[in-house]
């Protein structure tokens, strides 16, 4: 589906998020089943909104529309690969902690584990922050792609899309890790 045309937007990678929200809201208002819209239309609008709101989703769509190919096995920036080991290591650490916490049987055992949560949480936030900076620098390239015309930047767009895919996946995993820490604490 061409999400750009579905939402009546021009084919530009650089989108103002406030404006995008407003557009989605306006269409949802009419397309929602409660307003008399068709469930299928609402689902399309929801999906189109999801694609355009996410930078890699947007970029992948642009690549597709311009006739390019993502080539998932292609090379990825060294900057991105530098995050690979720290992210994997931290995720494992959190998983280990969470299993131990759930398996814990005594109030003191749980308390001793809980004492580690603040520092774990800080580590996760630090890494998420670093990835956020990297994401921002990758998204900055979008303006260039729009200016030069998508067809002229296919391989650069593909490389950026691959990099963003990793970055977003890791951010999601790290955010989920924070959630897991909360769940383990809440679990009692």
């Amino acid at each position, binding site marked *: 589906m061409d999400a750009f045309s579905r939402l009546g937007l021009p084919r530009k990678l650089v989108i103002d998020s406030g404006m995008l929200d*407003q557009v989605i809201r306006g269409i949802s208002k009419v397309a*929602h*089943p409660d307003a008399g819209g068709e469930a299928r239309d609402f689902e399309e609008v929801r999906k189109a909104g999801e694609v355009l709101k996410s930078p890699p989703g947007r970029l992948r769509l642009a690549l597709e529309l311009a006739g390019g190919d993502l080539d998932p096995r292609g090379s990825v920036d060294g900057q991105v690969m530098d995050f690979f080991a720290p992210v994997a290591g931290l995720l494992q650490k959190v998983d280990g902690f969470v299993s131990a916490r759930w398996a814990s049987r005594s109030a003191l055992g*749980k308390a001793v584990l809980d004492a580690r949560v603040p520092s774990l949480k800080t580590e996760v936030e630090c890494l998420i922050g670093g990835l956020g900076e990297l994401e921002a620098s990758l998204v900055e390239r979008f303006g260039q792609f729009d200016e030069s015309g998508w067809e002229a930047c296919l391989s650069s767009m593909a490389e950026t899309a691959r990099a963003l895919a990793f970055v977003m996946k890791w951010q999601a995993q790290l*955010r989920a890790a924070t959630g897991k820490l909360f*769940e383990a604490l809440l679990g009692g």
Partner: protein
Amino acid sequence: MNEVIVGIDLGTTQSAVAVVDSGFPILLADEEGSRLTPSAVWYGEDGALEVGRAALRRSGVEPVVTSVKSLMGRRLSEVEGRLTAEGKIQTKGGEVSPEEVSAEILKRLKVIAETRLETPVTKAVITVPAYFHDGQRAATKKAGELAGLDVVRILSEPTAAALSYGLDRLGENSRVAVFDLGGGTFDVSILEMREGVFEVSATAGDTKLGGDDFEVLLAKKAAQVLSFDFEGGDDLEKVRWLDESRRVKHALSEDDRVTFRMPFTGECEILRLDFDAWMGPYLDRMESCCRRAMLDAGVAASDLSAVVMVGGSSRIPAVKQRVASVFGRDPDLSQHPDEAIARGAAIQAGILAGTVREVILLDVTPLSLGIETMGGLMNVLIPRNTTIPCKAGELFTNAVDGQRSMTVTVLQGERELAADNWKLGSFEVAFEPDRRGQARVGVEFRIDADGILSVLARDVSTGRDTVIEVGSAAVDVHEAKVEQMVSESIEFAFEDMHARVFEEARLKAEELLPAVEIALEQAGEVLEPEVLSEIKASRDGVLLALESKQAQALKSAVEALDQSTETLAAILVERATASLFSGS
């Protein structure tokens, strides 16, 4: 369209029915002029029945069914003895299901509405906690049907409260949090309200946390002081203690000391200071939910323009204080804690009836939906906080040649392991016989605007669509049997009862002993000398008991160590919580 649709708040403790009249949502009063109906039902012999205040008048003297909401859509394993093996409630008038009890309350509300509006009422919007899973929502819908109502929407309570709050502020654009603490459930939702669109960004909660828990806590503390065995009391005795506990709980919101009185047993003074301290763990859980919701919504407390509090238990001063500290602002108390949700339900009813036009509600599913994989993990198909209605598809293929079908188990929850999540049910995917990997069946999971799941299977080769029944009744019936089987097998695995007791105690000791060392290192210096020596003595007791290999001795020694380290554990948790929740 002139058909009237009412909005109903089916609460744990109280219920209400409301409707939009000339643009204003109003609650409808019963023949005594009361807008709130207690969620209580009394069953007598020969079909005698009373609902509401009339039922409550018999409380403590005869069994009255209360807080039935906490039994709706629950599995037997979740409700510790409140239900029979068939999932029913025992009453003088026979066995009834939770849905049937809720239906009696709904019937009463229906009558109130019909009397006030002087017209038949057949359609309703009914609210549920945002965090209710599929089974709980379906049970609520079923209760409505039993009451003779067409339930046109199941609506989340915090969203309803937001509608009530936002209806007078349609010109403003804002982001708010709604904190809803009721009798049995807690929800927190983050919403954006812009140009008449109410959009839920994220929601979190606990369907087993509410005013009822604080009452039990108070009763137990008072019982301790008055040397009464609360756990061992009979049902009616417990109800009398809980009724007094409720009175004291309410009074503590006004006074800082209240006398707890039980005739023939005694009285004791309860200080608000102490009650606030006992509330600590519950407040921490609520705080965690609030932080989780803000995290999911991608907002900080400073991004919100208000935090709206609703629900009877939101009146408790300790709760208001915690909300103020978590969100960095005084809570908005403009909405009537007991009436806002019914008003919101009426507004949504008005939207569906076409009488309220300027507003549209975009709600979300609160729990991730997924399926169980071969390795016993959960594979998420629809993540939590996805706007509803929504759908997701998955393709299934045959693992072996000629395979006729496979069982798919559907789950809701956030845990990694399938077994730790809530099992919605299972269904069979049928394959056309083919070589492995060749048969293709696409399954579409749809969550409707009620937050309820329906499943559609499409055979890719034949193009045939089949609506799939996700069987949860089957799962439930087997569960009791499975539990029995599992406990029996454990019995047989440990022929020697002593060996089992010793093993359990040993595992706990193995965890506790190193934990004690670490904890003493981190916080030993702030302990009173007597507490410190008690801990050391009980630790040595455990070491001795481990040597002795005596099951009972080890069990008692471990329990003693557990108890002596309670204060130490509390100090560590307080430190961790303080540093975890500061500055974010």
